[in-house]
């Protein structure tokens, strides 16, 4: 199980917004976090989490809003 540490949404223009994770700090297998509505365009979500054995893990998810 992982503990979410930081999630950042980046727009095509390079603007970054950190999502509020204050209600999502408990370690879980799956995390569902809502963001503000997004306008059409390409985005990248950068996420960072802490595994239960203390390892930092990170990834990115590119997606497109039509």
């Amino acid at each position, binding site marked *: 199980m992982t*503990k979410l*540490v*930081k999630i950042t949404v980046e727009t095509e223009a390079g603007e970054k917004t950190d999502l509020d994770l204050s209600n999502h700090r408990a370690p879980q297998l799956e995390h569902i976090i809502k963001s503000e509505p997004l306008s059409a365009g390409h985005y990248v979500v950068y996420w960072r989490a*802490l595994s*239960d*054995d*203390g390892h*930092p893990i990170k990834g990115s998810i590119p997606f497109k809003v039509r």
Partner: protein
Amino acid sequence: MAFDVWSISIIIFKFISYAATLLSAGSFLFAVILKPNAKLSPKSWNILAIVLAILASFLLIPLNVGLFNDDGFSGMFDFEIFKIVIDSPIGDSTLYRILGLIILLVGLHFTGILHNFIGAIAVLIISWSFTQIGHLSNIEPSLIKLLLILHLLGVAYWIGAFIPLYRAANGLLPDEETADLAHRFGQWAVYIVIGLFIAGLIMAFNLLASPSQLFSTEYGRTLGFKILIFFALLGLAALNKLRLVPALKTSQPNAAKRLRQSIMLESLLVATIFIITAILTTVTQLPAHH
């Protein structure tokens, strides 16, 4: 393996923390087990190693905050992420390590049984700190944690001998006394190294799903490289025991110099193992178990 400025910084400080911590613990073990001449291990050097270990261990906290935040230097001081890191295995491990090191430091000011008792508690707490984090921390059975503790105590005893033996072979003791000290160290070392190796092997089997992962995975290959360096270290240790120490006992020319060179090379190989361990615990992923 993905390296960035944060992971490289964490690897460097982990290396310093491992080396200084195990050297501090090892100096205590060497002194208690072999009771060498006190001038071989100046108290000031022991204090320096412990302080360095405390600082390096402590600095891993803000460095991990910086890694998670990935927002430049100021990102190391994010209080929300700091709380998450402190309340994680990273925080637990650091707390126990620093606690053990402080107790070790306090123990230096005592002598006799009190010194030995306080030091033993400290060394056990320090060893325990390494079981709170990392790939082995969640593996069942819990016996694996005991193996890690024994593995680390063995490593500490081994490297705790480097400075005293080097100084002895550098003229602080006559050749015959140096040979006697090295011989007594070696008598214990045979069993400790065998135990260290077996413990390491069992841990490796628990980390990898199969021996083939030693070659087929990045983690396995890195671990395999560590094992190769260990065998090189073993070869040097055997050379010391079977050739150099007997040569020193009979005061053969250059025997002391060759022993010093061998100890220097052993130190380098141990440092390499610590760096590989820091890399394994920072930027590699455990292979999948099926």
